[in-house]
């Protein structure tokens, strides 16, 4: 028979004001196994904890129930206290009589019996509590950052500066990401390359950082502290040691293909660096475009390369490394608006997306920095910007606000006016959203100083007519329909999750929302953590966000990683699943629903009719198990139990509440 001690906290008047402590004590004395009951004004205080410790010694208690606030508040405090008195911490049980009782009731006559029931349930469970030991795990002091955009660069730099080794995996030939595609940044109109390039160089040269460009993560196994990762470094067909980055190869290369970096508006060579400031400045050969790989002849690049760095025989490499923590910073894509037939994107060269239009401003962009129409090369005099194309659209797009479009449209309208002084911009908007330091002022400047006409309404349809685009819209404030003979139309399309985000999520073991953006562990209090310990997220892979917010989140994720790596050992989860293999029928549904791959089949032998019989059952790997309980739910015969929350314990609680009304 266990010897249970029950301690009831007043929490000042928080509990005592609504729960009759005297009556509760009286009732608790009668619970099975209870040998000692006490109360205190603030049990979480030093004096309160001492009271518990002393009672454990004096009354030889082997189970402790505290009737206090939520275990989320002080379970750790009281576990520590009982440990100091020589008990296993898992022999403590918390009855939450504050959040679950006193705070949600007013009537002391009704709250008191409920508090008593909760205490009785906790005592019934405590009687069945077993001592548990959490496994400990050594921490590999190396971090992995997936994605080399501004989020990945910032996170890697912060981790490296704190003294830890960090690898950055980037699938493109160069780091830089979306920010490298931008001309200028709002609201200060800094040149994007001017502020990004130094960071790219800094991260590349940092002694604690390894850049693995043109590489992709293939497999992630293990758990916090010890993630075993396979990374595929794709063959560049260029020897990075020999290459001097002189650029002769891509000057001479005869094969052309649309440039991803230029959103397909310009061509690049089959051997290429994506953009002039690329880091590392080492070209790659695109096998699909290369004449040698496609047809077996050419090899001009190899002939022309001064240091003879071209190596057609190069193979993809698999790198296997162990990491203590991972940051996912894989960025975002632009929605393709082709399914908005009324806007005619893809049917007419002068209807562009925001990012495509952005490239027209760039000196190394498809038009050499001249803002002209792609149809006839003439500068556009009337440009219509349409906001919320695919954003805030539950019918054909995304229900959310893409957050950056109001600002970049204002920026592009200003830049347009600077490049083409007699151009007139029209912005069709539903709401202008400019929350951010200096943002509202910036947008107002566009409207007031740059002659940008803001029309509060939407565009119904664009009709291409001879050399212009007839835009049919409306201004809801005046109640007038509007027709504009535009030279160019720019669609502020929705920012969406990367097409392969679900795949990446599966690979690293984190989940996404219904739009495929990665989920943070808590929308307010754990914004960079995920539900998988040791994996963090930063930047627009979580939700659309602008550069300042991305950088802030990247630094936050880096701090979390540094905190983790600074520990030598991590305490694992004590409350893990366990299987009664004798009763396990081996249906394996627990294996199917386990999110952490902690359950696997195993063959056992058992006696049957005088002989032995082999059969399949399951076993749980306690270091992988997070104690989520999915397996215990799916096990029809209750053969899997969660330690600390066994079926028996839960039923004992239910019985304690129901049976003794």
């Amino acid at each position: 028979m266990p010897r249970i001690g029950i301690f009831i906290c007043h929490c000042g008047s928080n509990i005592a004001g609504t729960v009759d402590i005297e009556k509760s004590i009286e009732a608790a004395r009668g619970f099975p196994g209870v040998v000692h009951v006490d109360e205190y004004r603030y049990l979480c205080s030093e004096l309160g904890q001492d009271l518990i410790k002393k009672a454990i010694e004096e009354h030889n208690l082997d189970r402790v129930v505290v009737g206090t606030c939520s275990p989320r508040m002080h379970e750790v405090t009281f576990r520590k206290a009982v440990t100091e008195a020589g008990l296993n911490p898992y022999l403590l049980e918390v009855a939450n009589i504050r959040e679950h009782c006193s705070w949600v009731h007013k009537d002391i006559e009704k709250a008191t019996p409920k508090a008593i029931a909760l205490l009785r349930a906790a005592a019934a469970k405590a009687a069945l509590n077993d001592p548990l030991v959490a496994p400990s795990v050594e921490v590999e002091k190396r971090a992995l950052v997936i994605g080399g955009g501004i989020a990945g660069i910032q996170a890697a730099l912060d981790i490296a500066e704190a003294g830890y080794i960090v690898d950055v995996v980037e699938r493109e030939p160069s780091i830089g990401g979306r920010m490298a595609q931008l001309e200028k940044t709002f609201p200060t109109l800094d040149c994007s390359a001017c502020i990004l390039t130094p960071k790219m160089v800094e991260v590349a040269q940092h002694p604690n950082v390894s850049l693995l460009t043109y590489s992709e993560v293939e497999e992630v196994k293990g758990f916090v502290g010890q993630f075993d990762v396979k990374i595929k470094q794709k063959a560049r067909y260029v020897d990075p040691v020999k290459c001097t980055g002189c650029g002769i190869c891509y000057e001479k290369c005869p094969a052309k293909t649309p440039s991803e970096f230029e959103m397909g508006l310009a061509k690049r060579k089959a051997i290429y660096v994506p953009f002039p400031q690329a880091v590392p400045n080492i070209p790659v050969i695109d096998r699909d475009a290369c004449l040698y790989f496609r047809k077996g002849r050419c090899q001009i690049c190899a002939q022309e390369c001064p240091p003879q760095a071209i190596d057609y025989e190069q193979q993809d490499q698999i790198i296997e490394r162990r990491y203590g923590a991972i940051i996912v910073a894989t960025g975002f894509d632009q929605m393709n608006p082709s399914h908005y037939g009324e806007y005619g994107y893809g049917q007419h060269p002068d209807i562009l997306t925001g990012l495509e239009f952005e490239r027209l401003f760039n000196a190394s962009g498809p038009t050499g920095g001249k803002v002209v129409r792609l149809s006839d090369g003439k500068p556009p005099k009337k440009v219509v910007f349409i906001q919320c194309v695919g954003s805030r659209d539950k019918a054909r797009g995304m229900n959310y606000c893409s957050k950056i479009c109001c600002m970049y449209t204002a920026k592009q309208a200003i830049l347009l006016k600077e490049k083409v002084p007699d151009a007139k911009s029209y912005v069709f908007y539903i709401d202008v959203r400019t929350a951010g330091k200096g943002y509202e002022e910036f947008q107002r400047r566009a409207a007031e100083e740059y002659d940008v006409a803001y029309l509060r309404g939407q565009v119904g349809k664009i009709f291409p007519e001879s050399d212009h685009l007839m835009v049919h819209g409306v201004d809801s404030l005046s109640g007038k329909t509007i027709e504009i003979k535009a030279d160019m139309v720019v669609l502020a399309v929705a920012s969406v999750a990367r097409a392969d985000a679900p795949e990446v999520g599966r690979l690293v073991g984190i989940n996404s929302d219904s739009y495929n953006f990665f989920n943070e562990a808590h929308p307010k209090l754990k914004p960079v953590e995920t539900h998988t310990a040791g994996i963090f997220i930063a930047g627009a892979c979580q939700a659309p966000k602008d550069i300042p917010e991305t950088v802030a989140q990247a630094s936050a994720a880096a701090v979390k990683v540094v905190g983790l790596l600074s520990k030598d050992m991590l305490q694992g989860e004590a409350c893990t699943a366990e299987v009664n293999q004798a009763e396990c029928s081996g249906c394996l549904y627990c294996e199917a629903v386990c999110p952490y791959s902690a359950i696997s089949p195993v063959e056992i032998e058992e006696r049957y009719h005088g002989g032995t019989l082999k059969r399949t059952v399951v076993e749980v790997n306690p270091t992988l198990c997070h104690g989520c309980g999915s397996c215990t739910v799916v096990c029809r015969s209750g053969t899997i139990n969660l330690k600390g929350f066994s079926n028996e314990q839960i039923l004992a609680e239910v019985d304690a509440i129901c049976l003794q009304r």
Partner: protein
Amino acid sequence: MRYRYFPGCTLKGQAKSMEDTAMAAAAALGIELIELDEWQCCGAVYPLYEDELISLLSPVRTLAAAAGEPLVSLCSACHHVLKRAQELMQRNQDARHKVTDFLEVEYSGEGRVLHFLEVLRDDLGFDKLTEMIKKPLEGRKVAAYYGCLLLRPSKVMQFDDPENPTIMEDLLKTLGAEVVKSPYRTECCGAYLSVTEEGVASDTVARIIDSARQAGAEALITACPLCRYNLENCSREDGKEPIKVYYFSELLAEAMGLPGESTGADGSKEEVAQR
């Protein structure tokens, strides 16, 4: 290929030439169109109010009469009403029970409901049709005019891309015509507003015709008698060469070298096959 055929009110009257030419083409193509034994007007417009079950009686009776066989119509409006009535019968059990109980018929949304254009595209195939073209419409600059009812709501109609349809252009291409694409081809002509607000229909029609003319069209095709009426009657006198409006089936029959005649919306008749 065997289909039940629902003509609808106008095809036995003013739009007789649409029926005649389509039936002639179908016969030549081996498409069997068997007119339903008894049919009533579909109601011309689909009732948009949930409790307007009375207006569903006629289309549901028609759907039930097809007894699960594919049901074809020629008129955009008929097709629209039948297709949407079928979708409602599939989706809304309550409405289905009420309507079928009242009609004393068994119907639970089965059977394909097709526009004749879909039969040509999906069942016969334009490739196959090409073989049957005897007098290609060479040099004829024709634009397609879709209007609203064939395309929208696209989730129900599932006829073609609602903003960038191609079926009629593909047909015209098959018939050997020079296809002209007019940006206003999916804009509404004003529909029944010509009954009460002729001015409104005139505005919409003017835009459609101007756009087609600017794009270089000499003629338009449509699949809807009301569209044709509006396009022909509500266009304003602007001194420019009027644009001819045909039913798609008239040009189909002509290109197939079948005899037939076109009935203008004003009732005047002209030979088409001999041109």
